[in-house]
């Protein structure tokens, strides 16, 4: 054995409790990375249980089959067959003991690859409770691998699984192959009350180590199918010297089901061989896909014959009774609405105190450091650049943690699949999957957790579309902008139809615009940049289960940690850049002038409120002048010709530049520009200043038309560097983040231009 730790893959269906088992086997310490070339998360950890301690356990993405159409889907098969990496030393296949008739399909595919396999029958407690009886020994005999019964959430059978894995690692791969050919390992005695059965390893029989790979004898493979597979297999052996017998055969079977209308980068010889096999079968009136899958399921049924006794009644299970309510035409929709309301409330309101606490803590740290360091550029950089930037990152943590804890609870309990089931019809209308609903909804609170939540979508194209349109959802950071602008341009007493205030109607219109834009953008992306075959909904509705607190906390922490380290660093860097833009270059002459002014006030005005007010006014004016002098302030002038057709002047332009740090910063930036200080949207001085603002020709700046144009701009524009950073992280490429920023900016510009110019033509620019 080389110095490298052996590698054990963990494969299994979604909802089979694979993550739970991974956490148990590794002591919850996972290293998270990416598979090379794709944005599929690669979780691995050291086995901390049993004799194989130290072996690397790699958690493969949950899948029902090894068949792949995209490079994301082929991650599992590549790892298993050692394509692009060393082949694994052993594989643990996790099957949901309550759904073995489907779960063993993947298990037999993995077995065919010829690596030593241990099958974990997870959730065995649940299977027993619902009346199924599994004879693990008999199953082990039929499959030719060790079978261990586990209940990961209760930590049962985990030690036995680890021991079985250690035994599997000791086998030479070729012996494993031969062993399976020779049928049934010897039986181990059933263990007392734990009832964990294990097949004893039986490495004694060793047939010809170069024999053809394992193919259990029942049911016999139809001769024609065997011929087709052999035909492809022969090509693999000829072209790929590295492939061993089992690997060549497994690759041949994989190619037959996967290649054709795929988006894979498979070698052309393999592609041609698979196509030829299909063609020849077709000429004989056979369908190779169907034959191969049917044969494999025949094998599953044969393996379960006598090993599985199913409960007589499946219709009246607890899950079925719960579903009678939760997906009921009336109660189901009501339950759905309540759960979604909770999601929204959580992001919008419940996270608020936590966000407030974080902002308070950041301000306290800033004060502390400001007091401890001598005044100067370094102090400014640390306090207003770096510490404020860290605050910009950490402030998202409460929403991300809350959303992911809740999503994990929904997912592990089985309800998230029902969410998709209930709302799929609506989402399908714009070409999306039912699972896209939760991220879309979350987007109305904040795009950052929403983009992260797109991880629940398994199809990459669906996921990209969703994350690229989620920022169009009108998030809570836009609200202060709407509130300020409506307060400035509309009389609070003005009513529509005598009851509704004009402001409320405009606000509603902005949310409507955002909703329409989101759906249209999704439909357009689906038909253009992210065009591709329509993804069918193939959704398992797993039995309802009680989520484990431990798994929920671990999943939540993993998300938060990933956000802080990956996207957080980019957000921090961008924060510092924007702060620099709005702070430099300094104007020493102006600073000296304002210093003198303050001295004059202190000398001439008696101590008291009057003096404080005068000093305050002076520093606000100074901040305004400094901002106008900064690179960002001058940039406002630079972009003025571009934004003038939208009705904006350079001051609004500076606000828009500042808003890139976060949309609500638009308000405080305008406050500084208008010499009223860093204020919020409720500030009367800022509202007054905006109402009184004039253009050089003396006309009013903030007419209702300009206000509406500005709000439309904020609905559609990607004014948020954090969103860009997160989309870059989640899509794996700047390309997608750039495309999103580009299309949203163009959309916003064109829409605002339309509003302002058409409005002017209609003579609405008066008032």
């Amino acid at each position: 054995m080389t110095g490298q730790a052996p590698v054990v893959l963990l494969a299994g269906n979604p909802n089979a409790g694979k993550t739970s088992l991974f956490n148990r086997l590794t002591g919850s310490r996972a290293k998270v990375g990416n598979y090379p070339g794709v944005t599929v998360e690669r979780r691995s950890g050291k086995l901390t249980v049993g004799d194989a301690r130290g072996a690397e356990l790699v958690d493969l993405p949950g899948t029902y089959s090894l068949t792949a159409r995209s490079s994301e889907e082929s991650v599992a098969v590549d790892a298993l067959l050692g394509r692009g990496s060393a082949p694994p030393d052993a594989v643990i296949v996790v099957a949901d003991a309550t759904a073995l008739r489907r779960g063993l399909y993947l298990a037999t595919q993995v077995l065919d690859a010829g690596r030593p396999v241990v099958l974990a029958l997870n959730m065995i407690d649940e299977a027993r409770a619902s009346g199924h009886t599994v004879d693990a020994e008999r199953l082990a005999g039929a499959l030719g691998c060790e079978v261990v019964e586990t209940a990961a959430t209760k930590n049962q059978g985990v030690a036995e699984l680890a021991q079985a894995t250690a035994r599997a690692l000791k086998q030479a791969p070729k012996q494993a192959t031969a062993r399976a050919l020779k049928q049934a390992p010897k039986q181990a005695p059933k263990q007392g009350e734990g009832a964990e059965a294990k097949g004893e390893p039986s490495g004694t029989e060793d047939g010809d180590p170069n024999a053809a790979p394992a193919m259990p004898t029942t049911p016999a493979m139809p001769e024609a199918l065997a011929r087709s597979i052999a035909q492809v297999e022969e090509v693999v052996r000829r072209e790929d010297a590295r492939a061993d017998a089992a690997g060549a055969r497994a690759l041949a079977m994989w190619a037959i089901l996967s290649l054709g209308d795929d988006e894979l980068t498979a070698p052309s010889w393999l592609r041609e061989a698979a196509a030829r096999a299909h063609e020849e079968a077709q000429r004989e009136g056979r369908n190779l896909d169907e034959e191969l899958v049917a044969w494999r399921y025949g094998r599953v049924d044969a393996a379960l014959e006598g090993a599985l006794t199913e409960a007589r009644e499946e219709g009246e299970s607890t899950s079925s009774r719960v579903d009678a309510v939760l997906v009921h035409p009336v109660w189901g929709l009501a339950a759905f609405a309540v759960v979604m309301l909770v999601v929204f409330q959580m992001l919008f309101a419940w996270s608020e105190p936590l966000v407030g606490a974080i902002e308070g803590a950041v301000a306290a740290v800033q004060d502390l450091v400001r007091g401890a360091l001598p005044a100067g550029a370094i102090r400014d950089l640390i306090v207003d650049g770096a510490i404020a930037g860290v605050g910009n990152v950490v402030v998202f943590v409460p929403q991300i943690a809350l959303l992911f804890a809740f999503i994990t609870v929904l997912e592990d309990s089985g309800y998230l699949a029902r969410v998709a089931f209930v709302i799929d019809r609506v989402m399908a209308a714009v070409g999306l999957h039912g699972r896209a609903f939760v991220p879309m909804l979350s987007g109305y609170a904040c795009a950052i957790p929403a983009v992260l939540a797109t991880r629940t979508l398994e199809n990459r194209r669906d996921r990209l579309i969703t994350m690229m349109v989620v920022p169009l959802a009108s998030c809570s950071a836009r609200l202060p902008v709407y509130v300020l602008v409506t307060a400035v341009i509309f009389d609070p007493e003005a009513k529509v139809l005598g009851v509704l205030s004009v402001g409320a109607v405009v606000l509603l219109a902005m949310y409507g615009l955002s909703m329409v834009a989101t759906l249209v953008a999704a439909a357009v992306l689906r038909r253009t940049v992210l065009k591709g075959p329509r993804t069918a909904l193939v959704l398992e509705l797993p039995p309802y289960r009680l989520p484990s607190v431990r798994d929920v906390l671990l999943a939540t922490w993993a998300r938060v940690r990933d956000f802080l380290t990956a996207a957080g660093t980019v957000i921090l860097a961008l924060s510092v850049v924007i702060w620099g833009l709005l702070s430099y270059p300094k104007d020493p002459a102006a600073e000296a002038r304002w210093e003198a002014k303050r001295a004059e006030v202190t000398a001439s005005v008696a101590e008291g409120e009057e003096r404080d007010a005068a000093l305050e006014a002076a520093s606000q004016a100074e901040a305004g002048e400094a901002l106008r002098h900064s690179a960002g302030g001058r940039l406002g002038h630079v972009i003025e010709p571009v934004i003038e057709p939208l009705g904006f002047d350079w001051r609004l332009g500076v606000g828009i530049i500042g808003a890139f740090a976060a949309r609500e910063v638009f308000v405080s930036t305008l406050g500084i520009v208008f010499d009223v200080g860093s204020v919020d949207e409720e500030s009367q001085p800022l509202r007054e200043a905006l109402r009184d603002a004039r253009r050089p020709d003396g006309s009013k700046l903030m007419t209702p038309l300009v206000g509406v144009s500005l709000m439309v701009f904020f609905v559609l524009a990607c004014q948020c560097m954090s969103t860009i950073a997160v989309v870059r992280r989640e899509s794996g490429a700047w390309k997608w983040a750039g495309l999103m920023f580009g299309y949203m900016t163009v959309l916003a510009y064109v829409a605002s231009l339309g509003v302002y110019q058409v409005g002017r033509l209609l003579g609405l620019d008066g008032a």
Partner: protein
Amino acid sequence: MSTPVDADHDSVSQKSPSSQKSPSQDLSQLAPGKAGVVRRIRGERRTVVRLLEMGLVPGTRVEVKRKAPLGDPLELRVRGYTLSIRRSEAAGVEVSDVGDAAPARKGAARKGTAETRARAEGEPVLDVGSAEPVGRVGYASKGTS
């Protein structure tokens, strides 16, 4: 990159599954509570393979449990688990009606394979070894009919 097999698949995938004469129904026509035995699946190849791999192989008994609150997708019971697919995909799954789900569930513990169950119910099953090909799947039908 496209092979002749693909071209064939694509051309047929556009056809409406109901355009071919058949005595059996498709899965989208079964009322909730009814069960059928899968005869064949038609549609886009990638979807057909996915449905096959989720256990909807010819000879398998499948029950329509209910529709989603908004009418689509459908909730199916197949191979001892619950699967949801849209009506548009269900329309490609040709089934022979075996009536209400309830009577089939009476009786002793269900042992044996889906195939033996289907045989007992007198339904045609896929028999890839026999001379008579049953597994003629929609997307490959252009060349054979």
